[in-house]
């Protein structure tokens, strides 16, 4: 059978680099100082956050401006559950956070995806997200404006033995494993048959409709997966930062994954992860430049967005494609 070439720009390079980055994260506590380990844990959560967001943004082309609402829903729901039922296994409080995120994204998806317009979706997710921000800030059980503080890191009970995640860097290692598993699951959705249909819907929804596909239902499903995974990221973060405030539901927090996607490149699965790591590196590298940090970070972002359409990965792919063509000449 004459088989057409697959359009894979990086070939074997992608799993290689992904493996190296994973190894760097996994070994970090052995060679880096404590502050950096904490930052790396936050970055891991943000990578999951941004990859989940990009399932909607990169594949279906719809921008959710209220994604932070799902992140906060997962964080608050799991922290509240862990506090209300201290004996509950950790996995169940995390699952509760994800379930609340799933219910919320299902309901918001029903409303915001009624019309196929991108601006309608963006405004409605923004409005509903801000509504959730306000509700959290006014709910006494969730600590109102002060948020929840002193969230305990859990003890994993395996029956024969117990692992106290409060000691040492154990919770960090849990974050590495969880981020790797969730990213793997999202990778599979992106590249599988659902991902292919979603990408087709972004390019030509009417054609997909006339191939017998319920376009709205598929968008709703994508939003449901995206929201649930985002809530999972939030649920994982609460015991790490040990304090959560309503700011994680604020619209400005929804801007973070958008920024990571533009920085790394939304057209590729790993783009947002690259964006999150580069952004954290920029912030960390400029943390001592008093008053100048925002200027340097902002300038660097502006440069990438203006000079590198398609983000860092998009530009790398173009360059490597050019090299390959010249090599073949």
């Amino acid at each position, binding site marked *: *059978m*004459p*088989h*057409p*070439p697959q*359009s894979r720009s990086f070939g074997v390079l992608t799993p290689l680099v992904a493996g190296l980055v994973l190894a760097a994260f996994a070994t970090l506590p052995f060679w880096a100082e404590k502050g950096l380990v904490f930052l790396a844990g936050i970055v891991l959560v943000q990578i999951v956050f941004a990859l989940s967001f990009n399932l909607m943004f990169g594949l279906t082309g719809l921008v959710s401006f209220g994604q932070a609402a799902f992140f906060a829903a997962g964080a608050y729901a799991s922290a509240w559950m862990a506090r209300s039922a201290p004996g509950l296994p950790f996995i169940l409080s995390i699952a509760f956070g994800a379930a609340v995120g799933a219910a919320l994204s299902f309901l918001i998806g029903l409303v915001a995806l009624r019309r196929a317009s991108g601006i309608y979706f963006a405004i409605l997710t923004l409005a509903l997200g801000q509504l959730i921000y306000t509700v959290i800030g006014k709910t006494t059980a969730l600590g109102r404006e002060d948020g929840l503080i002193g969230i305990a890191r859990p003890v994993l009970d395996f029956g024969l033995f117990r692992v106290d995640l409060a000691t040492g860097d154990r919770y960090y290692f849990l974050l590495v494993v969880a981020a790797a598993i969730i990213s793997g699951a999202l990778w*599979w959705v992106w*590249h*599988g*048959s659902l991902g*292919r*249909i979603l*990408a*087709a819907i972004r*390019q*030509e929804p*009417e*054609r*997909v*409709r*006339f*191939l*017998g*596909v*319920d*376009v709205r239902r598929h968008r709703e499903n994508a939003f449901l997966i995206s929201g649930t995974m985002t809530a999972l990221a939030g649920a994982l973060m609460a015991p790490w930062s040990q304090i959560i405030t309503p700011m994680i539901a604020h619209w400005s927090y929804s801007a973070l994954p958008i920024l990571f996607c533009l920085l790394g490149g939304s057209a590729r699965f790993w783009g947002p992860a690259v964006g999150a790591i580069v952004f954290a590196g920029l912030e960390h590298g400029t943390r001592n430049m008093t008053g100048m940090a925002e200027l340097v970070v902002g300038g660097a972002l502006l440069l990438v967005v203006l000079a590198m359409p398609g983000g860092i990965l998009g530009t790398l792919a173009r360059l490597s494609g050019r090299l390959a063509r010249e090599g073949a000449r």
Partner: protein
Amino acid sequence: MSLIQAHGLTFAYPSVRVLKDVAITVEANESHVVIGPNGAGKTTLFKVLSGEIFPQAGSIRYDGEDVTRLDAWQRVHRGIGRTFQVARLFGEQTVFNNVVLALECRERINGSSAGRWWRLTPARALQEEAMERLASYGLDRRAGDAAATLSHGDKKRLELLLTLALHPKLIMLDEPTAGMAPEDRRAVVALINRLREEEGLTLLLTEHDMEVVFGLATRLTVLNYGEIIASGDPEEVRRDARVQEIYFGKGGGHA
């Protein structure tokens, strides 16, 4: 047997009524061409019949079933296919992947598992079928190219191929030869006639080119300002006095 029976179709935009009480019947295995001046409502009629938009009044029966309130994708499940005036393809994807996607959609409609659900790549049988279908349309040499890079005529052929991949009973073609060179037009006429005669398909078309119209129509309907003014055997319709006046009449109109 009538495949489509539509009555009283009315569709209006806020400022203009596009379809006024339109009735149209499409018999099985006919090649039914709808003509009319620009703005007569041909494309709107297509949209209403295919389920892209819903009429404000009227009913549509397809194959004995009332489909008036069914969305386009549900009508596709019942065997209606549709192409657009300007071909709609997945431009960033390869020509090959366009066809594979259509075949996967067909498998979903049929309820047969297109490979295991956790698989990342499409089933091998579908990949082979895609290459065979491309070869029969002379598009196999372009299989690895992005669909956006195809010529205008090839895009229209690929879109027809995607539509046929779903094994429709009725296909609706909106200006299938628009923007094509004369020899490409003749090829399309031959292809459409072959689909009807050999594969038993039913066709509903709009078309501007009169050579194409009379090359493939078995029934001709003339739409003018949202109303049907004549419908029947192509030669009889051509001789109809009103059609002569408003369509073929003085100044030539827009053929």
